[in-house]
């Protein structure tokens, strides 16, 4: 089980395009992927659940999964403000 706590750096937080890219990246993994904010954990592969969490710029989130690669990739997505586009090198 891998877990990383990161501060969200994308301007719009986890909304709009960054949210879509985040969920698409999580969906590539065969394992369960969780996203937690303020103690509330949701399925990171559900766009509706992720949007419902209302993650804003500067907020702390925790990403967890047995798939360490996807955890690192997701953490990179939300902290890399320059590149919010396509997921890099999906498996």
């Amino acid at each position: 089980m891998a877990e990383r706590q990161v501060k969200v750096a994308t301007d719009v937080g986890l909304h709009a395009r960054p949210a879509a890219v985040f969920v698409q990246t999580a969906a590539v993994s065969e394992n369960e992927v969780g996203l937690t904010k303020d103690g509330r954990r949701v399925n990171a592969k559900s766009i509706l659940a992720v949007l419902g969490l209302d993650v804003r710029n500067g907020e702390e989130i925790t990403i967890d999964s047995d798939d360490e690669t996807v955890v690192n990739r997701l953490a990179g997505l939300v902290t890399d403000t320059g590149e919010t586009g396509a997921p890099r090198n999906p498996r």
Partner: protein
Amino acid sequence: MTGDRTADITGVGVSPGVGAGPVRAMVARVPEPPAGQRLDGDAEAAKRAAAEAFEAVGADLDARAASAVERDRAEAAEVLSAQAMMARDPGLAEVTARKIDEGTGTARAVHEAFGTFRELIAGAGGYMAGRVADLDDIRDRVLAVLTGAPMPGVPNSDEPFILVARDLAPADTALIDPAKILAFVTAEGGPTSHSAILARTMGLPAVVAAPGALEIPDGTRVLVDGATGVVTVDPGEAAVQRAEQAANALAGALSAASGPGRTADGKPVPLLANIGGPGDVPGALSHGAEGVGLFRTEFLFLDAATAPTMEAQVETYRAVLSAFGNGRVVVRTLDAGADKPLAFLPAGEEPNPALGERALRMMRHHPDMLDTQLRALAEAARGTSAQLWVMAPMVADADDAAYFVEAARAAGLSEDVAKVGVMVEIPAAALRARDIAGEVDFFSIGTNDLAQYTFAADRQLGSLARFQDPWQPALLDLIHEAAEAANRAGKSCGVCGEAAADPALACVLVGLGVSGLSMSAPALPLVRAVLGAHTVSQCMKAADAARRGTSADTARELARSALPRLSALGL
């Protein structure tokens, strides 16, 4: 047009052109499956049906996104891809499956699953409000697949159609393929609604504010005229052809008519805009105004706690003057009084404000204020190349006119700086225009007030609106009187009331001897086109014909019969 059949619908034409074809109505909402609906059959089969419906909607949205990409509509494509993701959301499928397992009917289970997420997202507020609408749209699509109800949103059809809707939201219109739509008709909305703006951008004919449009059954053939606002139900082929020919002729005339206003035989008739301040200048320029025929200066004064300073006035006047190059800018001095009171210059209570101490009459009691405005105009004219014309409102006789000209010249508006003239809006001034012509450089006829005073009919009263009809022969006689007097004295005589915005009446005014027309800017292109299609002698015949009328309606009919190109242009 086939005329008076009650089935026809009239709205407001907001984007010219005609379209004929079958009606396809936009489906707004799929009915909510009843609460307490129980599962009737196998739960596993129900879950499969729900999953297939989610997938079908996701696939359809993906296909629409791909087609939006092909049409270079990147923004629409992104919205659609996001919606496709929502339709395939694992959370939705999970909640739906759980509810089906609990014995809830399939459609109801889907509805409630969407409800769960809807609440979650609506709770996030702000930006998310738009996502709630997206989610509702997906829910309705899934339910339509499940229940066989008509699919909501802009209909998909291989055959081009007339899109009928209550109103169109940006989200709807982002998905529209202009090649598939012949025209829009909306039951609600106005000339500035999103539907109207979009139609003009896409060059599609459109009629808005057409109540009854929603009652036209799908598949009914209609003819939409985006200029007149008429929607003809079940038109004959001949009517469609006539309308198309007229629309083509009008489009041709509108695009051919550019540059300065002139008659078909080349007599220049300056086409100018009425403006209320510098904010109206861009609109005037974009409609091809050659200058300003009426610059109302009240806005500087009416909302002010104190009289505007000379410096503030100079700046405003210069902003307008410099926008028109060498063009003409006709400025009307302050038109205030009991009906348009000023905070810093209380007028006494008057039983008949329209007949009281307003406009020039008021300024004659406050010569300093008039002097400041005139000096500001003289100062603004320095350093700009526009031709400044300055005129006074509410001039009754030669004495009023002489007073104003003297004040203007004394304030620095000498003959080489500005032309000085008067509004003709009081019947006495029109009847004795020959006395006034000797005092001034020009007339400008204000048809709205001239009608009010000629018919002793308050222009604010809807019940007396027929007396505001600018085709009234009595009004035409007075205009003729004033224009003749100006022409004999070698002075110019324009019209700056709404009468000038009616293309047929514009021809009649030219025939009466009027030398310039000023109107609200959007009316300019049509007036330019119609004027350019008629000769001076046709205009004069139309003017004579109109004055033989005994009512506004007969005057209009008689003039139209003398203006042969009107009906060819579908007007």
